């Protein structure tokens, strides 16, 4: 306990005395962690975005033109019963389908008007739950629906989902690579900053050893100083990142409408933020320990 209080006193005093060097160390750590956790924010937001896109994956259930009222209700009930897979369903009448076609393909609108009868079938447009969009529950549902009376066809947009998840895979891959590099950068930076800061102290450590100071007292403050620097750096990084997120959120900027909504940009989950701080402190601690171990 006494030893710990001594270390805390010494470390904070030393941080204060050498505030120039310490500030640089803290800043360096902060920037490394800022970039690192900035990546975490971008990647987690991207994953959320992809999940949302996945959410948009649809199952279209085309109905026969001569479907009876009972048949339509029974199809609706099949969907209602499968609410573990189905997020939402919407009935699209033949007239709605024509309207949508005209909206989506305005240059063909006149052509469609010239048609004798409405060629578009009525359908149920089904939104799937994100959790299920990758496994085979939707496929099973599709098979079941195909056998329901009054259903002409079920179109299940597998290809779209597969493309999306390959994009997600790529994002994750890039994430791991970039994340790895930046973690390495943070470790090297912190270690070097702490070590370099301690080169200037090696005489002091030597003197302490010569007058018989216990090892814990010699190394403790350095380890703690590294830890504090790491923690402060991490805190600074998170604060900067938080402001960056606020700035991004405030932008009235929507690319490819509806696909990305900046105002919903999420910050790091509390557990991740805690991890960043802990990581910073750990790295600083390790750096301080290495530095204090080999002052010669």
């Amino acid at each position: 306990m006494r030893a710990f209080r001594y270390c805390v006193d010494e470390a904070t005093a030393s941080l204060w005395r050498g505030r120039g060097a310490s500030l640089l160390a803290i800043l360096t750590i902060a920037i490394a962690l800022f970039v690192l956790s900035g990546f975490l924010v971008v990647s987690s937001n991207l994953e959320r975005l992809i999940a949302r896109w996945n959410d948009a994956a649809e199952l279209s259930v085309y109905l026969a033109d001569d479907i009876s009222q009972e048949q339509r209700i029974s199809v609706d009930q099949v969907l209602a019963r499968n609410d573990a897979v189905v997020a939402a369903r919407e009935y699209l009448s033949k007239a709605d389908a024509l309207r949508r076609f005209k909206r989506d393909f305005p240059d063909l609108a006149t052509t469609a008007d010239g048609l004798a009868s409405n060629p578009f079938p009525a359908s149920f447009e089904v939104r799937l739950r994100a959790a299920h969009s990758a496994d085979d529950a939707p496929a099973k549902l599709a098979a079941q629906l195909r056998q329901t009376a009054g259903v002409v066809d079920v179109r299940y947009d597998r290809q779209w989902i597969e493309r999306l998840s390959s994009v997600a895979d790529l994002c994750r891959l890039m994430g791991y690579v970039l994340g790895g590099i930046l973690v390495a950068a943070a470790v090297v930076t912190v270690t070097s900053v702490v070590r370099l800061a301690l080169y200037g102290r090696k005489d002091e450590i030597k003197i302490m050893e010569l007058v018989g100071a216990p090892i814990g007292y010699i190394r403790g403050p350095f380890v703690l100083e590294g830890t504090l620097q790491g923690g402060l750096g991490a805190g600074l990084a998170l604060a900067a990142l938080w402001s960056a997120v606020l700035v991004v959120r405030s932008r009235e900027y929507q690319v490819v409408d509806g696909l990305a909504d900046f105002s919903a940009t999420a910050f790091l989950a509390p557990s991740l933020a805690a991890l960043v701080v802990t990581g910073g402190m750990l790295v600083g601690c390790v750096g301080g320990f290495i530095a204090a171990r080999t002052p010669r």
Partner: protein
Amino acid sequence: MIDAQNVSKLYNRSVYALRDLTLKIEKGDFVFLTGPSGAGKSTFLRLLLREETPNKGALRVAGRDLSRLTTRQVQAYRRGVGFVFQDFKLIPRMTVLENIAFVPKVLGAGSVPMRRRTFQVLKWVGLQHRMNAFPLELSGGEQQRVAIARALINDPVLVLADEPTGNLDPDLSLEIMNLFREINARGTTVVVATHDRELIRQVGRHTITLAHGRIVENE
């Protein structure tokens, strides 16, 4: 107290700093170590602090073989030894007071008795008025006295002093020697390396003279 058997110390460039040194210093002795520059005085004291280990021979202090101590034991051993370094070795970022009280403080001495003790040693060396200065703000002689004060604070069983009066005027030197004599009178073994023949003459104690790493006189 100190028992050296055929101790030799050889530095990397094959310079023999000590050669086959055999000597005994009894508990409670006051010994002067003298000899020309480069004779090996500092080297012998450094061996006694276990800053270095002998290349040959055995060196025992208070029954302990200094070559056989673990890192922790070395730290504990050093705390029982008061050492005045030839180049002072003060910590520049600590004040005079902090430099002196550092070890007892980390060992958990109560702050009131420790403060009293620190003032006492500072007064002995005549530096109470400079206690909040930093080492670089002191004159050479003042730094030397701080180093002496640090060596004495712990009530050590063995005091080793390397040229403790090199930067002091004769009057102050004699005062410091009287201080060492006082401590010695209370049972502490004292070994002082010095060139100052005048001082040795005045204090007049057991004197070991080295030259080229060997004992040339022991009386």
